[in-house]
């Protein structure tokens, strides 16, 4: 019998080792971020990680300020990649937003970069997204006009198609993909709510894809026309706690 539901976040990430490459799903919003998986990764203690993410993570303090500005209630369990930056666990980050957007608010990863404690590869979101999809889809490399003539083209092959220069980009496959979805069944089939961000993109683009979900429903409840990510792309599913935690150190 297939049952991809794992009893705890700690169990789901027990085999993550230092130096691993990790896809982090979500997009600059704790509500579509795999918060509890990130907390479990922090507890796991693996370091020198290579992360792939749209953005470098807000961290608790920046997130609080951003939520206040919008008159929204701050989350106590809104952990994102900023936590990994604060703990010094990132050896390298591949991202489109290494910095915060505002001049006065500093992402935790900005401090890491200033101290020279991690490498960063900055690339446009579309090229990152396509490189991740390539990993899911078995394509080692593709050409794109995006980035030609700019710093992202440095060291990359340039080739013309129909007279337009393009650069060669390669697949980005990770050891683990940590993603967030709304509902799952025991096959690992997923349904998302809202913009599906890198969550759907990264599912299947890693050796092990782990989905953090709001609930697991009986097999058959998710209909065939409705499933966004087939369970084939998902190895492990973990359900978020019914009562939010307020400290990432609390086992979950």
């Amino acid at each position, binding site marked *: 019998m297939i049952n991809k539901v794992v009893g705890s976040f700690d169990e789901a990430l027990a085999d993550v080792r230092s130096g691993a490459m990790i896809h982090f799903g979500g*997009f600059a919003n704790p509500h579509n971020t795999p918060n509890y998986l990130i907390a479990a990764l922090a507890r796991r203690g693996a370091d020198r990680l290579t992360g792939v993410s749209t953005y470098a993570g807000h961290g608790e303090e920046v997130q609080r300020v951003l939520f206040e500005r919008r008159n929204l209630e701050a989350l106590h369990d809104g952990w994102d990649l900023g936590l990994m930056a604060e703990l010094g666990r990132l050896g390298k980050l591949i991202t489109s937003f290494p910095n915060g957007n505002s001049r006065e608010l500093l992402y935790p990863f900005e401090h890491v970069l200033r101290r020279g404690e991690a490498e960063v590869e900055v690339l446009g979101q579309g090229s990152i997204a396509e490189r991740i999809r390539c990993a899911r889809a078995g394509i080692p490399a593709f050409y794109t006009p995006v980035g030609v003539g700019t710093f992202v083209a440095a060291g990359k092959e340039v080739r013309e198609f129909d007279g337009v220069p393009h650069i060669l980009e390669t697949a980005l496959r990770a050891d683990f993909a940590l993603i967030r979805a709304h509902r799952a069944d025991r096959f690992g089939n997923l349904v998302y709510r809202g913009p599906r961000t890198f969550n759907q993109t990264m599912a299947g683009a890693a050796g092990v894809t782990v989905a953090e979900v709001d609930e697991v429903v009986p097999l058959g409840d998710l209909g065939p026309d409705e499933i966004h990510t087939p369970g084939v792309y998902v190895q492990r599913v973990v359900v978020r706690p019914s009562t939010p935690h307020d400290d990432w150190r609390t086992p979950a």
Partner: protein
Amino acid sequence: MSEQPELLDESVMAMVAARDLPDGAIVNLGLGLPLALSDYIPPDREVLFHSEQGIVGFGARVFDPAEVDPLLMNAGGEPVASAPGMSYMSHDESFAMIRGGHIDVTVLGALQVDARGNLANAQIPGKPAPGLGGGQDLATCAKQVLVVMRHLAPNGDPKIVERCDMVLTALGCVDRVVTDVGLFEIADGRVTLLEYAPGWTVEQIQAITGVELAVAEDVREIVLG
């Protein structure tokens, strides 16, 4: 500088940019000033706003916390309204849409724009690394690139220049620029003033612009609506 006429405020700049979006257009809104555009679409026009994380067809920004859907934000993380016909997708599909040339207009902020249409908006001064977001994809692949920005940098430097000297986001891509003093077109290596903010003269605008401006035959004061 003390005798300068008034600068357009941010909401008026957004209205100027929104004014020219055609009915049915697919429009991506970038970080900063462009985010306000979804608030200013006349009710008789249907414009589909696209956001990188996988939304097409969202509505105006939502300021009442009681009305917020925490999953539905624009690219800058501001809550926006749902609208009939809106759809969600993945990041890869969202960028397939961008890179496949399906976006009619991309509205971007900028640090510098030059006469060749080059765009620099990656390296915010003081930040440890350049940031691209989806801007490079959008500037390269959208059918029209519309920049909305202040005319001058915080340090007083002109942002429309002969040649960008900041980190480039994309080459030869900018078609139009809305600033707080006017509306400009960039084509064939030339920046042309199309409309000026109320009270401004061509000479006053030229004086704070880093490139010699051409002036449209029918140059006129900006009128909304």
